[in-house]
């Protein structure tokens, strides 16, 4: 749908609503998917999907509904149903009226080149990557996803905000049968004109060959060099814990970092090399410009180790007299610009980690997560790669990671294992990282 078609549909649906308040979100996507394994395409798809989410309220009573059809009968039935649900719902003291119109910056998330990418073009781009793996005697498995999306948020107070986005993400795992080597690399861009698939494949293959015949290094706390995908995962999980209400209610990891009655914001809770912000207009990894109609601004979360902000929902902001603070739509950590080799050169004894996997919360009191390394783990000795080592399970909290950064590299946009949020972060050297046991996985 075009912007005007989307706006007309919003007006049509809101025109059917009789409730006191209404919020409407429409998302229209076309995804092109190419998935490969064993050096062949295994599945694929050209997927058109539409979603319409409508929330209505009568005073403090509210309900929501989602549908994916736009015929008149469905729209009328959906509105009637959600209004009936809302009338029956008990009053929620925390229910607030829809947001008022805001000022929205033009997003940076669109590329005509990406929107124009056809399945034929995508297949042609992927073919040499797979053929290079075949030529190298490597098993490759990859995933390319090109997404085009137009979305609108509208409400009964006159808000209408429309944004378009495009992304292309590609990741590849290369596996060497002999010696059980495995390597992984990825890229994500807004503009397909900047998409380079072949170097991704080359990095994965190089790492797979280098990781053959891994030896066992004892588990324990050690210095690690976290490549950007691992940093993506850990910082994403950290940002998910930055909630003002959880802290005020005493059930946040932040409660354990400050004394009774102290506020964590403004305190140096982390190391001075820890800086983290979000900015929807950050060109290398832009994000959407609003959350449920609330404009998203550039927000500093951690600056030189000092906690600067927590996310605050609308109700909690009103109750506590605070400013509303939406969750981050992207994450950016400016690095020191060092190359990965320079970071490794500064480590006397440690481990280089390519990628993390299966991260799960173990202890919310400390934000302790567990997970594993995969697809390229190497020992570092005297500033050089000393050879591949078996993978590790870690038990570590991102809090410690942010406390123990000793150096950082050049940031890049990279895919993680846990989230699709745009992330632009550097590789990090982190001391005293808890590699708790060895995994036989390769």
């Amino acid at each position, binding site marked *: 749908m075009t912007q005007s078609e989307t706006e007309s549909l919003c007006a049509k649906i809101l025109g059917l609503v009789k409730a006191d308040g209404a919020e409407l979100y429409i998302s229209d996507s076309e995804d092109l998917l190419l998935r490969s394994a064993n050096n062949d395409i295994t599945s694929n*798809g050209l997927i058109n999907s539409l979603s319409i989410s409508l929330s209505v309220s009568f005073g403090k009573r509210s309900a929501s509904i989602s549908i994916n059809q736009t015929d008149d009968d469905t729209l009328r039935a959906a509105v009637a149903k959600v209004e009936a649900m809302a009338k029956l719902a008990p009053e929620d003291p925390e229910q607030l009226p829809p947001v008022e119109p805001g000022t929205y910056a033009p997003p940076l998330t669109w590329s005509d080149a990406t929107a124009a990418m056809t399945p034929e073009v995508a297949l042609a781009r992927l073919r040499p990557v797979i053929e290079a793996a075949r030529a190298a005697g490597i098993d490759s498995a990859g995933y390319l996803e090109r997404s085009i999306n137009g979305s609108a948020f509208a409400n009964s107070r006159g808000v209408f905000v429309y944004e378009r986005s495009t992304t292309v993400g590609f990741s590849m795992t290369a596996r060497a049968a002999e010696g059980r080597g495995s390597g992984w690399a990825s890229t994500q861009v807004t503009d397909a004109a900047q998409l380079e698939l072949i170097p991704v494949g080359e990095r994965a293959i190089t790492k797979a060959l280098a990781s053959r015949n891994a030896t066992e290094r004892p588990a324990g706390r050690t210095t690690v060099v976290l490549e950007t995908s691992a940093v993506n995962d850990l910082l994403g999980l950290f940002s998910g814990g930055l909630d003002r209400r959880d802290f005020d209610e*005493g059930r946040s990891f932040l409660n354990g970092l400050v004394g009774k009655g102290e506020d964590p914001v403004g305190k140096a809770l982390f190391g001075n090399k820890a800086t983290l912000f979000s900015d929807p207009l950050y060109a290398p990894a832009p994000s959407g410009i609003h959350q449920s109609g609330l404009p998203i601004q550039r927000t500093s979360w951690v600056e030189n180790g000092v906690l600067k902000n927590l996310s605050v929902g609308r109700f909690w902001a009103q109750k506590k007299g605070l400013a509303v603070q939406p969750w981050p739509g992207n994450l950016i950590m400016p690095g020191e610009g060092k190359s990965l080799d320079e970071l490794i050169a500064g480590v006397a004894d440690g481990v280089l980690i390519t990628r993390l996997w299966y991260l799960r919360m173990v202890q919310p009191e400390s934000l302790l997560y*567990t997970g594993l390394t995969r697809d390229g783990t190497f020992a570092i000795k005297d500033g050089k790669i000393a050879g591949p080592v078996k993978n590790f399970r870690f038990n570590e909290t991102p809090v410690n990671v942010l406390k123990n950064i000793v150096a950082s590299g050049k940031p890049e946009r990279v895919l993680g294992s846990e989230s699709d949020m745009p992330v632009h972060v550097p590789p990090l050297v982190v001391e005293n990282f808890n590699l708790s*046991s060895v*995994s036989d996985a390769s």
Partner: protein
Amino acid sequence: MHRRDWLKGTSAAGLALLSSKWTSTAWAAADLSTRFPALADAAMAKATELGASFADLHLMQTDRESLFVREEMVQGVDAGSSLGCSVRVLVQGAWGFAASGEISEKRVLQLVESAVAVAKGQVGWRKQPVEIETLPSHTGRWEMPVTVDPFTIPLEEKVERLLAINRSALGKGASYCNSHVSAVRERKWLANTFGTRIEQSRMRIHPSFSITLVDPKKGGFASRASSRPPRGAGYEHLSEWDAAGEAALAVEQAKEKMAAPSVTPGKMDLVIAPSNLWLTIHETVGHATELDRSLGYEANFAGTSFCTPDKLDSLQYGSNLVNLYADRTAGGGLSTVMWDDDGVKTLGKEFPIVKDGVFRNFQMALGQAALIGREGGSNGCAYSDSFDAFPIQRMPNISLQPGADNAVTAESLIADVEDGIYIDGNGSWSIDQQRYNFQFTGQVFHRIRNGKIDGMFRDVAYQGNSVDFWKACDGLGGAPTYELGGAMNCGKGQPQQVAPVSHGAVPARFRQINVLNTARESGKDIAAGPIKGCDCSGAGEWA
């Protein structure tokens, strides 16, 4: 539910149009059933005309509803429906796939053309053509039998049940309590070029709560989540649950957990309740024995497996007590269906994965059995989670079979443990991408001393290697102790698909398993007794 009851649902009278004011697109089901044969014929003819050696058409309608109550506030009253179709074609040994939310003959024929074009784009550079077995054709309808359709229950009743949970927990001293129930109905229509024309409908429901205790004076908090699993069932799965009673127990257990000594890490004997063990089965056996994973199809995301085809019929996966069976026919099973999403009939396709401790079979979808030289084709394990998802191999219900002695209970397993832990409820879970190294926590960790429960531990996780763990199993509860656990949200594939799956289990005993102290893992010192500053003297302290 017994097999006999399940079979009743296969009658031609099944899949009646469900009248419900809570489902958004119920009115469309009958219409789709009417339109489906003509759409199917048109799509199959077009695919064949364009050179497809195989094609299928999927229509899918999903209805969802969920309620969320925070303390005494109803904060989420949500309903949703999606409807759409997809076409999958096999052309010159390559798959093509396309999907849309629009269901019309014109759109379906466009999808066929798109899918064929993507498939033909691979011609000339494929390394190995995709080959599939010929499947028997099926026609018919099936509806998962449930006692009470949750979509027909008035909102007020469901809300009151959740409020009652929260009132019970808060009344017992919980600082916070969230409760939630979600229900899903999937309707699917499938046609393929083998002549299959089928319709089926399934239901699932998951009621849950989580309580949190906070010590406002001195800091510290603890949580305890409910143990009621999701189930392929109707509203009765919520209405027959003494949720308020469990909520009250949860508060008492959370208090005891906060006051409990922190566990000393090391090797310990564990007795694991079905409420925890189902997830361990899922991760260490379920995913490890997916053939697509073993063959590398999931290498870029979910991973591969230590369990490779050369280990079939030879790998000692566990002690000879261990029997793990797969089915898609168990009553109440989240994976239970009449036909899988390749159109394979599941009845009669049940199979052992581990028998007497030995690895016996993989889970397979269309075209996979021949890759390892197995006769009989797919064992009915294909699933797509939405109308726009390519069907992939997903988990059937995989369950640990009871021990031979019906008299064995959790208590009798505990009686033979000198120093150990009885673990109840599932908590955190993680396992490597080849399913060797796992780590799990739980909800409640009862200390075992001299064959009896003696208080609790806190900060417990158990960690190990899948095969070593199952080899350490030396005791199983009898049939009366069997319980069906499961998950609504098992993830796999790119783009990720989410599948529901059940796992039955009995209490089981495992000798000398590695126990971690999670507080120590986070870098904190282990306190000798209660959490520093935690006053555990009574309910009033937790207000």
